[in-house]
C-alpha cells in the first residue's frame, strides 16, 4: 500500500513538475511586466513559444558535431532526473530514499556541463565567452551550497531531501537563527544558479550581460526549445527545493491519502507563487551587477553560511 502510494505520488510529482515549468516561467515574466507597468504577455505564452519552436526545423552550423544534437537532450534528461528527486507536495515518494541534496547538485552540474559543451562546439567567439563566464559561477556558488548542507546536516541529521523536509516539518530544531542564515545563503545561491538579477539579466542581448543567451546563440528549432524548457525546469526545481527545505509546512507526510495530497498540492502552489513574487520584487529592486562583482555577493553568502555553521558548532559543543 505504501509502495503504491509512493509510485503514484512519484508519477504525479514528475508530471506536475514537467507541466508547470513553463507556467512558472510565464508567471515570473508576467509579474515582472506588471511591476514595470506593462500589461505583459499571458502566463501561458511559454507553452506557445515552445510549441512553435518544436515545430520548426533546427539549423546547425556546418562544423557542428553530434554534440550539438545530443547535448540539449542530455541536459534536459539530467534536469528531469533532478526534478524527479526533489520533493514537492508529498513526502515518501518512490525515489525519496535516493533523493540526496548532493546528488541533485551533481545532476544540475551535469546539465550545466552539457550546456557548456554545446556552447563550445561550433567554436565561435560568443559561445566561448558565454562558456568562460558560465564556468566561473558554479566555482563560487558550490562551496556556499555545501556549507549550507553542513548546517542542514547538523540540524536534520541527514542530507536526504525527504529527511530534511520531514525533520523541519516536525519542528525538531524549531525556528533557528542558523536556519535563517543558511536559508538566506541558499537564496543567493539560487539567484546565481538560475542566472537571475542581480547576478545576470535573463533575456538581455547586450554583450556585457549575455551569459546564457551567448551560449544559446547558435541553437534553433527544437534544440532551442529544449534549452529554454530546461532553464524553466531548473527554475521550478530550485523554487521547489527552497520550498521543501525552508518552508516544508503543508507537505503531505509519507503514506497519507489523496486528501493530504490535495492539501499538499495547494500548499505547494501557494509556496511557489510566494517565491515567484519575492523573486520578482527582488529583481525589480536590484540592477544587474558587473560579472566581476559576483565574488562579492557570493562571498557575503559564504559568510552567512559560515556564521550559521559556526553558531551550530558552538551550540552543540560539550554540554
Amino acid at each position, binding site marked *: 500500500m505504501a509502495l503504491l502510494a509512493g509510485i503514484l505520488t512519484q508519477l504525479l510529482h514528475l508530471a506536475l513538475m514537467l507541466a508547470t515549468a513553463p507556467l512558472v516561467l510565464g508567471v515570473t515574466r508576467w509579474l515582472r511586466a506588471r511591476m514595470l507597468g506593462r500589461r505583459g504577455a499571458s502566463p501561458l505564452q511559454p507553452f506557445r513559444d515552445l510549441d512553435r519552436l518544436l515545430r520548426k526545423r533546427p539549423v546547425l*552550423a556546418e*562544423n557542428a*558535431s553530434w554534440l550539438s544534437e545530443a547535448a540539449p537532450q542530455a541536459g534536459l534528461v539530467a534536469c528531469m*532526473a533532478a526534478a524527479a528527486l526533489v520533493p514537492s507536495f508529498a513526502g515518501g515518494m518512490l525515489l525519496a530514499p535516493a533523493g540526496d541534496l548532493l546528488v541533485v547538485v551533481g545532476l544540475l*552540474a551535469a546539465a550545466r556541463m552539457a550546456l557548456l559543451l554545446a556552447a563550445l*562546439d561550433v*567554436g565561435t567567439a560568443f559561445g566561448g565567452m558565454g562558456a568562460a563566464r558560465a564556468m566561473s559561477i558554479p566555482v563560487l556558488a558550490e562551496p556556499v551550497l555545501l556549507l549550507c548542507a553542513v548546517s542542514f546536516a547538523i540540524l536534520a541529521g541527514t542530507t536526504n531531501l525527504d529527511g530534511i523536509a520531514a525533520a523541519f516539518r516536525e519542528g525538531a530544531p524549531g525556528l533557528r537563527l542558523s536556519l535563517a542564515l543558511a536559508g538566506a545563503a541558499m537564496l543567493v545561491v539560487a539567484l546565481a544558479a538560475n542566472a537571475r538579477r542581480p547576478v545576470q539579466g535573463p533575456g538581455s542581448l547586450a554583450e556585457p550581460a549575455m551569459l546564457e543567451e551567448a551560449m544559446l546563440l547558435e541553437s534553433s528549432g527544437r534544440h532551442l526549445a529544449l534549452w529554454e524548457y530546461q532553464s524553466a525546469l531548473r527554475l521550478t526545481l530550485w523554487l521547489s527545493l527552497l520550498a521543501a527545505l525552508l518552508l516544508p509546512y503543508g507537505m503531505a507526510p509519507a503514506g497519507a491519502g489523496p486528501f493530504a495530497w490535495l492539501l499538499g498540492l495547494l500548499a505547494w502552489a501557494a509556496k511557489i507563487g510566494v517565491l515567484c513574487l519575492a523573486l520578482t520584487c527582488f529583481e525589480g529592486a536590484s540592477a544587474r551587477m558587473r560579472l566581476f562583482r559576483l565574488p562579492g555577493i557570493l562571498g557575503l553568502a559564504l559568510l552567512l553560511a559560515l556564521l550559521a555553521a559556526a553558531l551550530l558548532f558552538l551550540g552543540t*559543543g560539550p554540554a
Partner: protein
Amino acid sequence: MGVSAGFAVLAAFSLLAGLPEGVLALPLGPPWGAASLALDGLSAWFLLLLGMVGACTSLFALGAPPGPARSLPPFPLLLAGMALSLTAADAFLLLLGLGLAALAAGALVAVEHGQAEARMAARRHLILAALAAGCLMPACGLLAGPAGAYDFAAMRGVPPEGWRAGAVLALGMLGAGALAGQLPFAQGAAPGHAAALLSGAMPGLTIYVLARLLADLCGPAQPSWWGLPLLAAGAVSALLGALQALREEDGQSLLAWAGIGHLGLAVSGLGLALAFRGADLGALAGLAAGAALLQALGQGVFMALLVLAAGAVAHTAGSRKLDRLGGLIHAMPVTAACTLIGVLAASCLPPLSGFAGAWLLLQSVLAGWRVGFIGFQLAAAAATVLAALALALVAAAMLRLFGMAFLGRPRSPRGAGAHEVSRPERWAILLPAGLTLLLGLFPGVLLLLAEPALGVLTGRAAAPVRDLALLAGDRPAAYAPLVLALVLALSGGLLAWLLRRRSPLAAARGPAWDGGFIAPPDYLPFGDPLTQPSASGLAQPLRRMLGEPRAARLPSDSTPRLRDWLAGRVGWLPGLTARQGLSLGFGTLVLLLVLLLWPGGR
C-alpha cells in the same frame, strides 16, 4: 601486457575468494633477515588498480609506433617496481620497489634526452625521488622500534608514541608529497603509455604508502588530531592542483595537475578516516576510508584514459599545446567519445566513477562535526569549502581541455591534418572508458570488495553499502547509481518519444550565426584564430574573479624579491608609521590569543 592483466586477475580473485594468510618469505633479502611478500586487503586493492591501469597502457603500447630501443625495458621494470612495493611485507622491499619504480620512471622520462626540457625534467624527477627515499627511510627506521625488526608484522607490534609518532607523520607526509610531486615533471616528458601508467598508478602508490605507514603500521591507538595534517594537506593540495590546472596551456601538464587535485581529495579522505578512528567513530571512519579507496581507484582509471587520449592526440595532431588543437571531434570520433567519458568522470558528475568517491568524501566531511572538538569542526568546515572549490575548479579545467582540443575549429594546419588512432590504440582507449562506466555504476560492489582494505585501515570491515547503494549517516542519505541510471534512461526514452512525435524534422546545415559571422579572409585558410576562444581566454574570467593578476608570476623570481624585502626591513623600527604601529600591536594581540589556545597553555 599479460603480466599486468595477470596482476589484475590475481587481485580480483584474492579479494573475492579470501586473502592468503601469512607472508611469503623469499629466499633472498637484506643482511638482517629474509624479505617477505604478503597480500592483505590494502595491497590487493591497489594491486587491482595497478593491474587495470597496466593492462590498458600495455595495450596502448602495443598499438603505438615504437620509440627508440632504450624506451622498451624500463616499462616492465616500472610495473615490477610498483608491484613489488605494493606486495611488500617488510620495509626493505617497500623501499626497494619504490626506488626501482623511480629509476625506471627516470629512464623513461630521459628517453628524449636530446631535448633540454626532458633532461631538466629527468633531473627534477630524480631529485624528488631522492627526497622521497630520504624521508621514507628514516620513517621506516623510526617505525622499526628498538629491536630493529623491519617486517610489517613486527612493526605493528611496537606502535610509536609521542615525538616518534609525530616524526613518522611528518616524514611520511613529506615522502608521499615528494612521490606525488614527481607527477607534473615526469608526465610531461615521458612517452604516452608510460605517462599514462605514471599518472594512473603513481597517485595510488602514494596513497598506499601513506595508508600503510600511517594507518596500518602506526596502529589504531593514535589520537584524533593525527588526521588533521593529512586533511589540511589534502584539501590545500587539491585546491592548488586545480588552480594550476586552470593556468596550464599544455594538455599533459593540465592533466598532471588535475591528477594532483584528485589525489589531494583522496588524501583528505584518508586524513578524515584517521581522525574518525581516533575519535572512536567507527562507521564514519569506514565511510571516509571507503571514500579514499574509491577515489583512488576511480582516479587511476580515468586519469590513465585521459593521458592515453592526450598522448594519442599529441601524436596525430602534432602538438600538445591547447592553442594548436581544435575540432578533433570530427577527425577522431572514437577518441573524442572516450575522452568525453573521461572528462565527465574527472569532473565528478553522476553517475560516473568520479562522483561515487566525491559523494562519499563530501558525506564524510559533512559529518566532521561529530568529532566534538571545535577546532576539528572548524577545520572540517574549511575542508568542505576547499574540497567544493577544488571539485568545481577541476570540472572547469576538464571542460577547458575538452573544449579546446576536441571542439571548435582547427587552430593550426597541422592540427587539421589529424586522423584516428590505430585499432589496438582504439581498444586501449575504449577499455578504460568502459571500466569508468562500470565502476561508476557499481560502486557498492567495489566497496564490498574493499572490505578487507577497510578492515586494515579502520579496524572494522564493514562497508557503507546496502543493496548496491552507498549509504551515509544515521538517518541514511543514499546514493544509488543504478536507480539514477534507470531514471536517466527512462527520462531519455520518454523525451526521445515525445520529440519524435512533436518535432520530426531533421536538422539542416548552414553557416555559423554568432550574431554575424563571415568567412575568414583568404590568407587564413583555417579560419581566423581570433574568432575562437584561446586557452588562456577560457580561463580568464574565472582567474580574474579569484583575484589573480593578469600575468602569472613565476616562483623563480620571488626569491630575489624576498631577499630585497628582507634587506629593506632592517632598521625599520624607529621609522614606524601609526598604521604600522597599530598593525604591530594587533599582531601581538593575535599572537597572544593564539598562544592561549595552545593545548597545555591553560
